[in-house]
């Protein structure tokens, strides 16, 4: 059960291994890494991206990620979990975010992992500014599909509306 918000990149292998190290009660570890793509849908068109800058709200980000992590532990029997989210400037191919969940059984690990990223995407205060290869920088617009995806995990009507 850990969250981190950092500018620097993370080592995927090190992060994941630390979650299961020295434990014999974990049957499955599910993880998801989000990466910067060199193309992004901007104002209804797929455009080439040269870099991306993630702004966030220091303080509230950590608070929200901790809440999301705690919620995952409330809902599933997890042995370990991790959220690492970067901010600042990143280039295509770089890692942005890592979420992982470990449990005795794979169902719980998968569902909790999916929950972590889905809720993070609609709740954690991050904003992407994409540097277009041809044109000026643009703020990414939130996607309705992310709200709908997060709503699947909702237990109260307005959970996903934030």
């Amino acid at each position, binding site marked *: 059960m850990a969250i981190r918000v950092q500018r620097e990149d993370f080592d995927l292998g090190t992060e994941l291994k630390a979650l299961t190290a020295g434990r014999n009660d974990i049957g499955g570890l599910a993880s998801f890494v989000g990466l910067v793509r060199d193309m992004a849908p901007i104002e209804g068109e797929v455009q080439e991206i040269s870099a991306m800058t993630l702004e966030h709200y220091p303080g509230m980000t950590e*608070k929200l990620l901790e809440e999301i992590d705690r919620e995952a532990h409330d809902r599933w029997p997890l042995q370990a979990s991790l959220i690492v989210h970067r901010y600042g400037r990143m280039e295509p191919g770089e890692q*942005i975010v890592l979420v992982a969940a470990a449990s005795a059984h794979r169902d719980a690990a998968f569902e909790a992992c999916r929950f972590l990223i889905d809720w*993070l995407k609609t709740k954690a205060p*991050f904003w992407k500014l994409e540097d277009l290869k041809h044109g000026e920088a643009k*703020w990414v617009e939130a996607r309705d599909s992310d709200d709908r995806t997060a709503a699947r995990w909702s237990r109260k009507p307005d959970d996903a509306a*934030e």
Partner: protein
Amino acid sequence: MKLLYFAWLKTKTGCAEEEVELPGDVTTVAELTAWLKTRSPGHAAALADEKAIRIAVNQAYAKPGDRVSDGDEVALFPPVTGG
């Protein structure tokens, strides 16, 4: 009250952070945004489409009817796009 603006709200208001003293008749989030619109044309433009804005009071998501007071930290920002 400490106000924070993120993403394009920062660009439009021309301001990342400002300290304001609330008028006595501003006691809710909705009253706060209505009042902020009168502070400058930039604020008016940034806050024109209220559906496009999320508000956090003391780092927790808030609704239009929630109370605000002078000691609060209030952040205004677009829907989040992290992950």
